[in-house]
């Protein structure tokens, strides 16, 4: 695949937590804006590890990951995570003591969006509305929302600062079928309507079928 138009390129990336067990071996992948990708593989294949490397939560030791042609190892990872890439975690990882609105606004604060407090609040309400949460739910503490609602808040937070890339780790893993459909609709619309690169880590074939491209990660030989 040509990397000339890729927003993200993974070039010969290998990773191991200890020297006896290689998790990823010379992975080459490329991702473009405006498309949805699924990354599949058996349990322990290294999908979540790959996601951690792409999001900058883990450091690349072998190979390189290029964002917009720039090696992410050379850029500030916190800035990269707060402005260029949005992560939807498997367990949502929301701040439970805050409301849904406050979780989204906090993300905007961290990314230093050039908006005042009122504008951030308005944008947050609009985003939450877009993902299916009305104002009443937006003002509710996250702890008092359902799993599907929390997932929507996590998506809203991940896109609050308009990143180029959205990564979702098993976004439908804990959800029922109907909610899974709604969440997938949201994610695919991010790519189709907002030209984002959406990467979904999943082991569900039904989720993979909804994406444009599927990458299969195989466990490296022992």
């Amino acid at each position, binding site marked *: 695949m040509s990397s000339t138009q890729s927003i993200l390129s993974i070039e010969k990336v290998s990773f191991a937590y200890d020297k006896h067990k290689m998790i990823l071996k010379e992975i080459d992948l490329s991702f473009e804006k405006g498309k949805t990708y699924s990354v599949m593989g058996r349990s322990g294949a290294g999908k979540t590890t790959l996601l*951690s490397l792409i999001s900058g*939560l*883990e450091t690349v030791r072998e190979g390189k990951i290029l964002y917009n042609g720039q090696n992410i190892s050379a850029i500030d990872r*916190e*800035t*990269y*995570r*707060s*402005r260029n890439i949005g*992560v939807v*975690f*498997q*367990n949502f*990882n*929301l*701040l439970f*003591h805050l409301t849904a609105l406050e979780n989204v606004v*906090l*993300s905007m*604060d*961290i*990314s230093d969006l050039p908006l005042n407090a009122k504008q951030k609040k308005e944008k947050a309400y609009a985003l939450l509305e877009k993902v299916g949460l009305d104002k009443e739910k937006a003002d509710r503490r996250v702890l008092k929302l359902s799993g599907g609602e929390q997932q929507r808040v996590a998506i809203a*937070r991940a896109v609050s600062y308009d990143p180029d890339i959205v990564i979702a780790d098993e976004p439908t893993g804990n959800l029922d079928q109907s909610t899974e459909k709604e969440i997938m609709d949201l994610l695919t619309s991010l790519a189709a309507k907002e030209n984002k690169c959406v990467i979904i880590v999943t082991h569900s074939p039904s989720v993979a079928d909804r994406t444009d491209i599927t990458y299969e990660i195989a466990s490296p030989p022992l």
Partner: protein
Amino acid sequence: MYIFKNALKNITRSKGRNILIGAVIVIISATSCIALAIRSSAGEIVSSYEDSFEITASLSVDREALRDLMMSQSEGSRGSMRDLMAEIESPGMAEIEKYGDSEYVDHYTCTLSIGMDSSGLEPLTNDDPENADQTESGAGQGMPGGGSGLPIERGDFTVIAYSSLQAMDRFISGDNTITSGSMFGENETQPVCVISDELAAYNDLTVGDTILLNKPGDEENSYTLAIAGIYKDTSVDDSAMNWFSNSANQIITAFPAVQEIAGTDAQISATFYLNNINDLQSLETEMKNKGLNEYYILTTNDSALEQTLRPLENLNDFAGIFLLIVLIIGGAILMILTMINTRERKYEIGVLRAIGMKKGKLAAQFVAELLIVSFISLLIGASVGALASVPTAQALLQNEIESIQNEQSSIEENFGMAPGAGGGRFGGGQGGGREIMGGMFEPNANVDHISRINAVIKFRVMLQLLLIGLGVTLCATMVSVVLISRYEPLRILSGRS
């Protein structure tokens, strides 16, 4: 700024935890405030008192050196202390004037004294003649300005003259007061004198009467002194043991009179008023260079200063140690609470770092939370401290004074001395005691301790408190900062999964 906003939000979110932290800081700041106020006030009082206190130095025989000399002599040729002391030439007026001419000496006073007998006067004697002091050491109650320590020629009476009215400490302090007639002038040339009311009453004398004196063993040559005034010694109470009181047999006269009577036989003692307490050693060195006998030393009244200031200095030291303990223990408790607080919020830290919040900003948020709580608590603690500092300081000082006085009374009782009987043979100096029995104790029942301390909170104390509060808080926040820098978001969030 969102960090400050989040910090405020988090403070109100965890009320219980922050109230606990606040309580610790209130206690630290209140106790620190009181301790600082005590130290500040005590320091000012001590400094002010030292500046106004007249440090005096007197020449006296170095008995210890003489004792060493005596012991170093072989048994056959060993003389007595008295013999050795008699061999030492005491400084004359010319020497005194030479020593007094020093950059370290503000001014000096002298006394001349000589033992005399009288055919017409009966001396007041001790109850037990065997215990009567045969020779006066030249130092004791009623002999201010110290003494050289050398024995005065034996006589029933001591005729004493002062170089100036300023040298008459006991009259200046009010221990002696003229009850009849008046004191003669500083430049008196006539042969007049002032005697004690006890002597006057015992010999039925009044102002205007004359007394006839002669040197011991020389009845042919006599000297007449007219009584110009009679004084009362108010410092001796009825409970004092008689054989400690010798001032009744003193006859105070003018300088020229004693010089005429005694000539070179007069015993001279001088009191040098130093500019600074730290000049003592320098002055002694200078005197030695000017020819002072090697067996003479300078002794000062700094023990009186030390005794007066002792409760205050003890209080000052106590406040300092207490402050240190409070800061160490309070600081440690605060650090532990901060550590627990930070560890409890590990998940929050992991999430914030995972969504891109920088370590520094996260640490700044935690620091801001603690600083806000600290500032509010500091204000409360300082208010409490300001209200409590004055009564607390006063109570502690009173306690300290009582403790010292009880200690002194106990010592005096153990040595069979009545309270206030610290004078006489063993007393001296300006209200202080002299070292006795190898420095075991200093009976000072009559010392006036500084008993009032106004430990108000001044600007300087507030500033010190603010710095202490800031220091303790920042030390505690270091725990948060270290933990935050060590936490990896992936480990935290994976562990939670």
